[in-house]
């Protein structure tokens, strides 16, 4: 295990914050107190991110659908108001983008072990199937939402679903 501290890019935190505010998950003074001082271009320790995740998760009895929706909302914002539209043209492109060098690995910084994997293991476009291996320290429901939101964002796919494997290490995607 490396002594290096895993860091998260400010843009990811900003995206997360904006999604939470858009969905009214947190609002008012709590939102201001929670997200004030986050700079888009800075890096923050993973603990900061974990703390922000905890705020949402601890507020809900069943936080899975909420975190999934946060992930979808994050990608909707990224595509419509951020750089997304210029980077991908079709839903399937997002799979390649997110699992490539400009995707997940560009917003986290640390040792390989800490960063974990977010890799496209299989894609069969004809069948509309793909498998992503995920050993990141992030919430799996949110990642699930990120994949769904990112793939639906360009609007060319009629159906996208993502299921988390029982061992929590893979996400199976179906798209049409």
């Amino acid at each position: 295990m490396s002594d290096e501290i895993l860091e998260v890019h400010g843009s990811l935190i900003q995206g997360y914050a904006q999604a939470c505010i858009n969905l009214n998950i947190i609002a008012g003074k709590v939102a201001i107190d929670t997200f004030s001082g986050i700079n888009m271009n800075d890096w923050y320790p993973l603990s900061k991110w974990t703390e922000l995740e905890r705020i949402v998760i601890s507020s809900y009895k069943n936080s899975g659908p909420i975190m999934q929706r946060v992930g979808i909302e994050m990608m909707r914002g990224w595509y419509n108001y951020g750089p997304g539209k210029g980077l991908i043209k079709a839903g399937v492109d997002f799979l390649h983008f997110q699992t490539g060098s400009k995707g997940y690995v560009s917003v986290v910084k640390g040792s390989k072990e800490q960063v974990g994997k977010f890799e496209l293991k299989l894609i069969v476009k004809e069948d509309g199937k793909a498998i992503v291996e995920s050993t990141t320290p992030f919430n799996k429901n949110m990642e699930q939402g990120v994949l769904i939101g990112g793939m639906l964002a360009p609007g060319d796919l009629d159906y996208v679903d993502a299921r988390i494997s029982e061992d929590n290490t893979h996400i199976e995607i179906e798209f049409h």
Partner: protein
Amino acid sequence: MGLNELLTSQKPPENGKWDLKNQDLTKFFWKYKGLLKEAERNNAFWMSTNDNMKSAYEKLDYQERELLKAYNLNRKFLDNIKEGLLLIDSNFMILEQYSDFLEELFKTKRVAGLSILDFIYPDKQGSQEDRKVLSKYLNLLFKNTSADQEMLSEMNPLVEKELSLVNLDYQVETIIVNVDFIRIMAGSSVDNIMVIFQDITHIVKMQKELQYEKDKHEEELESISAIIKAGPQSFQGFINDLIDVIGQLQSFLDNDPKKNSLDVLFRNIHSLKGTSRYMNLNYIANQSHKIEDLLVKYKKKTTVITEYELKEEIKKGIQNLNAAVQNITKMQEIFINFSRSSAELKDLNQESLANHFLISLQDMVADISNTMNKEIKLQIDNTIHDFPYLEEVKSPIIHLLRNAVDHGIEDKFERLSHNKKAQGHIKLGLHQKENNYIIEIYDDGRGIDFEKVKQKAIDKKLIVKKPEDVSKLELLNIMLLPDFSTKEVVSDISGRGYGLDIVKDTLTKLRGKIAVATEMNKGTRFTLMIPVKQTEEKYV
């Protein structure tokens, strides 16, 4: 009709003219499934949100119930606590929640929404100064958060504060309160001040009653001690003198006195004070001293209060003396009843009474010299076995001794600077020489300062000829005049200028003579000579 055309149209094509290919049907299938999936995801999201809202409502409900419980508890506390509690904001306005006791204490239903200044001091005109002080103090509490707590407590203007208020029957009532002020902070600033009123009216009343009982008890003890010290007969004489003085004071109040009779009154009350002090009847001595003060103000007209107010004060003094007469008479009766069974007291003769008196003078001199921080030894030599004028000469002896201690003997530093022993020496001698009783009072003090006497006599316009032509004998005669004293400050011990007048008056009545020998820094000797045989027209 193609799939896209179909989906954007308002209704299905007429006559069932569907022009859909297999590819269109597949897309339609996935679009439909996609919508279902989205609906499923939305449903899950809203279910979770709903759950969350439900638990939030439950939490809110629980908190509301807890809040209500706390409010009721708080209300119960505020309704039952026997202290007045209220909160004020930075405009000094009283907030909604306050304890019921406040209404009871201040006899009003109007509390919340009032300024605390108006609440405590409803009479704006009559309590301007009090309102100003309280307002200043509250400003300090709100604005100066660094002020020391101890200093703030010392500055608190509402400690044992007497407040006048109008009750529900429009009658003025007085209450005494202790008020505490507790700052309620919001960060580094003061948000509110909690004001706590404690009703101490009853406690203060009890304290006064206790003090009254204590004073009465001390007065009784003083009376017993005085009876023992003076002996029952002399004590009766003292009571008679006291009653006389009260009568004279009453006459003074009833008629506007001429200067001469005022001088007599002064002399008698001064004599009463001296005798009381000698007998340790401090209450009577203090009352006499107060009345003397009032008479001086009356005589010199140097007071801002009116003659009517002065007389009212004197009237109070008379009432106090009357009460003292009743008290000591009662004690005397108890004591006499008690002493009837005492063989010792039955056998008291003139000689033992004289010895009793002379011994008690030692205590008196010791008391006064202690008060004045002087070291004095009193030596008494009495060779008169059966002195018939003992009662008459007691007062002159007391006054001369008091004068010797106060005026004659210097303090030890002055004595040491004149190469004298630190301890002063007073001798009292009572002898019979041929046809006279001789009473000598000698002190080794500073002697009479004739220059000072002369100056005082000039100030009082008692000298009509040139000052350099005035002899020492003439100055000694001036010293014997009533109201003459060289002391600038009147003390409890001397300074009124009536001591020597009393001596002179007594000696005149006894057809006696006074001789004075004095030398600066050596001492003074007063010699009183009283003829053994008094003629028929002896004083009455």
